[in-house]
């Protein structure tokens, strides 16, 4: 029996490992759809990335003199690898997954002290690092080639893609890339979007993009599952989606020829993945209720700004990183009101009792 055991003497929380498992469960449908859309190379890339994360996590934990078992068991490393894989071009070369995974684990997580200590979302930081360092490989999208279709590479042939190079003529542009390219040539949206933009197609993933970008519907479904299971709160995803939809709607209303419709913003690119799975990362998002609204809105708004005016066609990863950087500040300035105090922290005045 131990003395100095503090109350409470009962616990009612889901352990960390279970939380991570639920997130993975929510990601599963979209991932499977991604596998189906992009075939074996995508599966290999996913495997390589997850293994890279798990391996580097083990290495780091061992280096700090602890047992790797418990650290791996919480599933956070696998989840990071998973999210990173979902945000990469599905036919990216193997080394992208390996370098990205190692960067995420070593530089973004364990240099800061491991789980719960990092300041930036490891998956997104790795994604941005890869994009900046290897812009060519990181923008080679391709139209879905569903498993079993004629163009789909076989399990063996796919090895040549993941560990070699993408065969010529396979690449295609994602919607956002396409719009960006057309816009630089002065082509108006109504022309450039003809035959390319179909909300239905985008929501089921028949579009070029990364695995986690294409099946918006399944991702949103997974997100709603997490909301329902109370793994994530509603504030960040709702604010994220609002933060991108509102300015997009306003701009599209004012100049439909220049600005994409809000639906396209919501369904294309990594918004669904970002809003439900990336921005909601506990560690790197604010802890105050108001701060979570600010954070989500900021993510959405920055995404829209970068997509609309920036040099990069997709801004989710940058927006999340930028808001990660602002998280401590947001927390600092959005402390909740304490019971019995005003927002500024002064005690409430004694109220004269009402006559009865």
């Amino acid at each position: 029996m131990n003395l100095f055991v503090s109350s409470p003497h009962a616990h009612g929380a889901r352990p960390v490992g279970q939380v991570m498992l639920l997130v993975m469960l929510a990601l599963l449908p979209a991932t499977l759809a991604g596998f189906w859309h992009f075939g074996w190379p995508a599966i290999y890339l996913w495997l390589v990335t997850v293994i890279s994360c798990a391996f580097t996590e083990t290495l780091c934990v061992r280096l700090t003199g602890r047992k790797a078992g418990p650290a791996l068991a919480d599933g956070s490393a696998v989840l990071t690898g998973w999210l990173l894989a979902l945000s990469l071009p599905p036919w990216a070369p193997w080394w992208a997954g390996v370098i990205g995974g190692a960067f995420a684990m070593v530089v973004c997580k364990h240099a800061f002290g491991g789980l719960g200590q990092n300041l930036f979302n490891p998956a997104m930081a790795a994604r941005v690092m890869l994009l900046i360092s290897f812009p060519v490989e990181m923008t080679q999208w391709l139209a879905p080639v569903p498993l079993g279709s004629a163009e789909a590479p076989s399990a063996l042939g796919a090895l040549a893609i993941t560990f070699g190079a993408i065969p010529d003529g396979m690449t295609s542009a994602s919607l956002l890339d396409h719009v960006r390219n057309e816009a630089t040539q002065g082509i108006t949206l109504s022309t450039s979007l003809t035959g390319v933009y179909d909300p239905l197609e985008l929501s089921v993933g028949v579009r070029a993009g990364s695995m986690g970008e294409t099946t918006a519907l399944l991702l949103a479904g997974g997100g709603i599952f997490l909301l329902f299971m109370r793994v994530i709160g509603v504030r960040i995803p709702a604010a994220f989606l609002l933060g991108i939809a509102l300015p997009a709607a306003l701009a599209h209303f004012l100049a439909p020829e220049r600005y994409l419709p809000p639906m396209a913003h919501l369904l294309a690119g990594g918004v669904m993945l970002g809003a439900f799975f990336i921005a909601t990362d506990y560690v790197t998002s604010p802890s105050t209720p108001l701060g979570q609204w600010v954070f989500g809105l900021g993510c959405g708004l920055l995404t829209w700004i970068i997509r609309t005016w920036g040099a990069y066609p997709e801004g989710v990863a940058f927006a999340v990183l930028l808001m990660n950087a602002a998280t401590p500040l947001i927390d600092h300035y959005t402390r909740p009101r304490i019971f019995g105090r005003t927002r500024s922290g002064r005690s409430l005045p004694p109220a004269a009792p009402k006559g009865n």
Partner: protein
Amino acid sequence: MGAPDTPLFVRLSRLLKRWGAHPEGHKYPAAGTEITAIPLPALLTLPLSQHVGAPARPVVAVGQRVLRGQLLAEAAATISAPIHAPTSGTVTGIAEVPVPHPSGLSGMAILLAPDGLDEAVEFHGADPFTLEPAEIARRVAAAGVVGLGGAAFPAAVKLSQGQRTPISTLIINGGECEPYLSCDDRLMRERAPAVVDGARIIRHTVGAGRVLIGVETNKPEAIAALREAAAGLEGIRVVPVPSRYPMGSAQQLISWLTGLEVPAEGRSADIGMLVHNVGTAVAIHRAIRFGEPFTKRVVTVTGGALRTPRNLEVCLGTPAAALVEFCGGLVDTPARLVIGGPMMGIAVNTLDLPIIKGTGGVLALSAAETGARREEGPCIRCTSCVGACPIGLLPLEMAARIRGGDLGASVDLGLKDCIGCGTCAFVCPSKIPLVQYFNHAKGELAARERSKLKQDAIRELAEARSARMEREAREKAEAAARRKAERERAKAEAAAKAAAAAAAAEKSASEENTA
């Protein structure tokens, strides 16, 4: 929810702010058993400090025979409470014994060996409505009644407080939001008329207009019984409140029932509210109507490692072991023994501890119930604790700063507003002992405050000493100077005398010469 006259916007805001937690109740089977009295043990141990405030001062001698209800120790200060003999017997000692305290340290206690005769002193009951409020408060104080909701704050202090500030609403707290405990539940079911009468006495004492009895919805029988007892009585309303921890905290209950918040640096009386626990109401009822001092209470004895959980009425001072034995003993080695409820109770490593005024439960929890003992994990900033905190604090940030040794920063974050309810630690997926961090910091800050006071006192002493030394030195120097001056004057005088004498001699010589 039937919270009366709560503004609509407050009710709507509750949908957004869902503080608290929903621990598993575990109220049954104990809640289904009637309150049973247990036989007297061989020795009653009555700690002098069973309440908030100064320990009581013994007024009996070792070897003295006392009767039931006789005063054993008197209140030693304004905030203190007397202790009475629960039965007749002999005082066998006044000594240091282990008391229920998280430190496991000992405290002074009166040891009373019952003689089995249970002879009582004469009690003087009265009709409360003919008594002056001040007289009621005095009698409640003399009966040693303390708040039975857990804090054990002397009840009479709150009653006389009510005389200074106008009280509009009396709230009787039947929340009993702690899991496992059902002593208040049984009290309300079995002694509803006493609860209601106690409430009426308190209302009379403080001059409150209305009485709200808040009971969590998981106690429908208690609500029914109270409603029956209060039927036909003007201004007494039984209000069901949602079962949510910590609804039984006075501030949360007030806020839920009236929509008003107690100022952080004030008391509930500041907003015209007074809260008393149902057990306290019954104790006040007995103290006034029958003149009985507070010497017995209902205790829930339960837990997965106990054979037959039940509610017992026991004399104060009975060892917890006797209660457990009466309930058939343990079926299993308990993972943890707890005095009080599982959320705020204290873990102990022995059952040889007396039941005191504030003890609501004795729990023998199995390993499955405490949750497999796992080490503290890193904080993943999931903010469960932020959502759960009924006060609106940021437990994760406070704990991080305390861990880093920056107690001042944790105070800036609102450490002093923490009520220690444990909801944050309950919902923490990493099992971080948040409550211990906060208790450590609060204790450490109090210790620093004490040492600062001591240092200020010491500084004064040191300054007084150096002033004294200076004065002494000065006086010495002055005295020396005086003596020196004296000596010199004497010397000078002597010299002058000698010179005069010499001159005189010379003169006379010359006179002689001239003569």
